[in-house]
């Protein structure tokens, strides 16, 4: 602190010699950096702003690109919230996103832990096989998923919507990489202290990778909350629709009720915000803990 103050108080010899010197060029570079970041921020936020703006418009004004509605209204919110279907879809999405998140956190971390900390023949092969599924786009997997669901009677069930997301290759990869940072000494100490392998994973290894679990929870929850293609294909019963599928059904064959869709979408962002706020502190705390390590 004292050194920092010294630096601030004492002008450099260069400054003393040339007091009129223009600001160093790094300030321009900084300005450009800030400008680019601002532009990026605007690009990110604009769709959200338009979503809120459209939700406050009457249907006749929807195709006007003005940001502030000429006649702002909360009528869309009243309509959506009074429509009983919205609550059903909201609940469906909540159940599916929560269960898949819990399942992914458990199974991905379990598989990642085993692949990272146990030496057995073929573990690299298994890891590569799991990773290779990341190369296959969801659109290609939808057909086999559908055929499988049809044959097993999983269509129009929660299980049918959830099963493809109960474990993810990305999660396994992420957790394996994080478990690499957990020293084996912790696990061996627990082994000597009498814990079995499942207890070691749960009581020792898992608390040490909380930041990764938090990040994975956010990714998985958001991914499932906003999932559209598979829930659309897997369900025909409107009572089992998830929120994105349900919202897309607003309107009729002649017209799409964008103001209602945007209203539903605006409301549906709230849980994702809550999830982010809950889990982000673990990520931040994880970074702080890492900084304190000797």
């Amino acid at each position, binding site marked *: 602190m004292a050194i920092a103050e010294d630096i601030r108080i004492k002008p450099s010899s260069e400054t003393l010699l040339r007091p009129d010197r223009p600001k160093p060029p790094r300030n321009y570079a900084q300005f450009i950096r800030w400008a680019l970041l601002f532009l990026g921020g605007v690009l990110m936020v604009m769709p959200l702003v338009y979503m809120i703006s459209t939700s406050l418009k009457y249907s006749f004004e929807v195709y006007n690109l003005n940001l502030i509605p000429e006649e702002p209204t909360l009528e869309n919110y009243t309509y959506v919230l009074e429509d009983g279907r919205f609550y059903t879809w909201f609940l469906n999405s909540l159940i599916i996103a929560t269960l898949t998140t819990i399942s992914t956190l458990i199974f991905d971390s379990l598989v990642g832990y085993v692949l990272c900390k146990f030496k057995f023949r073929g573990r690299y092969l298994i890891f590569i096989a799991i990773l290779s599924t990341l190369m296959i786009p969801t659109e290609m997997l939808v057909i086999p998923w559908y055929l499988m669901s049809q044959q097993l009677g999983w269509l129009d069930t929660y299980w049918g919507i959830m099963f493809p997301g109960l474990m993810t290759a990305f999660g396994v990869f992420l957790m394996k990489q994080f478990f690499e940072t957990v*020293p084996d*000494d*912790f696990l*061996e*100490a*627990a*082994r*000597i*202290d*009498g*814990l079995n392998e499942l207890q070691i994973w749960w009581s*020792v290894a898992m*608390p*040490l990778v*909380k930041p990764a679990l938090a990040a994975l929870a956010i990714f998985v929850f958001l991914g499932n909350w906003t999932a559209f293609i598979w829930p659309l294909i897997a369900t025909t019963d409107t009572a089992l629709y998830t929120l994105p599928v349900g919202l897309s059904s607003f309107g009729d064959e002649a017209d799409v009720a964008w103001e209602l869709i945007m209203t539903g979408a605006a409301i549906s962002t709230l849980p994702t915000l809550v999830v982010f706020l809950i889990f982000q502190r673990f990520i931040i705390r994880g970074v702080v*803990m890492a900084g*304190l*390590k*000797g």
Partner: protein
Amino acid sequence: MANLALRDLVKTYDRTEVLHSINLDVKDGEFVVFVGPSGCGKSTTLRMIAGLEEVTSGTVEIGGQVVNNLEPKDRDIAMVFQNYAIYPHMTVRKNIAFGLRTSKMTRAQKEARIEEVAGILGMTEYLDRKPNQLSGGQRQRVAIGRAMVRDPAVFLFDEPLSNLDAQLRTQMRLEIKKLHRRVGSTIVFVTHDQVEAMTMADRIVIMKDGHIQQIGSPAEVYHAPANTFVAQFIGAPSMNLLEGRGTASGVTLWTGAALATGPKADGKALTIGIRPEDLHVVESGGVLSGVVSVAEPLGSETLVYVDVDGKEIIASASGRTPPAAGDRITLDLDVRNLHVFDAASGEALA
């Protein structure tokens, strides 16, 4: 408490034998230190005792029972790791209590035991702190506390002081030694630091390339090294090893100086060992003469590096009136302090 025995212990990784027939008996309550350079097999031996490495062949016996096939938790041992291995998400109390998770003690008994251990280690006031609020020495105490709380038959320490600074290491060395006196447990301690080994051990096991080089008390390994490796590894600065040849009456050094000592090995190539403190700077009549290349003042003594006929020899000189670099000095020695080794095998000759 219990005795520990290693019988013909062998470890192989991918057909490469890294530990070769290790045999050792550790008495009940004894403090044994494994010391050696990196890769000598000391940590592998310790991990095999702990059950963290499989035994390729041979047996590990604790308290007279062969434990090769027992899980680490069933061996009645506790281990302190180099990186402490205390859980960062738990308080000191929970870390120490962790060792009692599988114990059949009541909650009150466990609490009493934790308080007792924390008291012994001087950690009572830190019980509710997290590890990141502790210093390195305090963290190491927590690790020791977690091992102590279970009252194991054998304590295993795997280079536990390596991560501490020099001052703290000296302090912890003393504390572990006091702790051993107090609890009287059997301890196997691994280190690469010969000073740690010398100051703490009842007996030292010196290892190199998977072989035991010598087992003995600190005084034995220092004053009667079994071979040139032990002679050089134990003691700082290292023992001087000089070329010589056996004669009918003793040995002749490479300088031509004749010394009446040692085994009679007429004509045989020998290595003569002499510790720096056994070489004395004299005004006249010494055995070796040379020019001081470097003088290292240490306060109580000064180490002088002397160039004698192209070979560098370390000697200990007075701390008050030391020779300076560039001085020509003469060194004398007491032949009773010479160590004679076979030049070819490096083994000590009786």
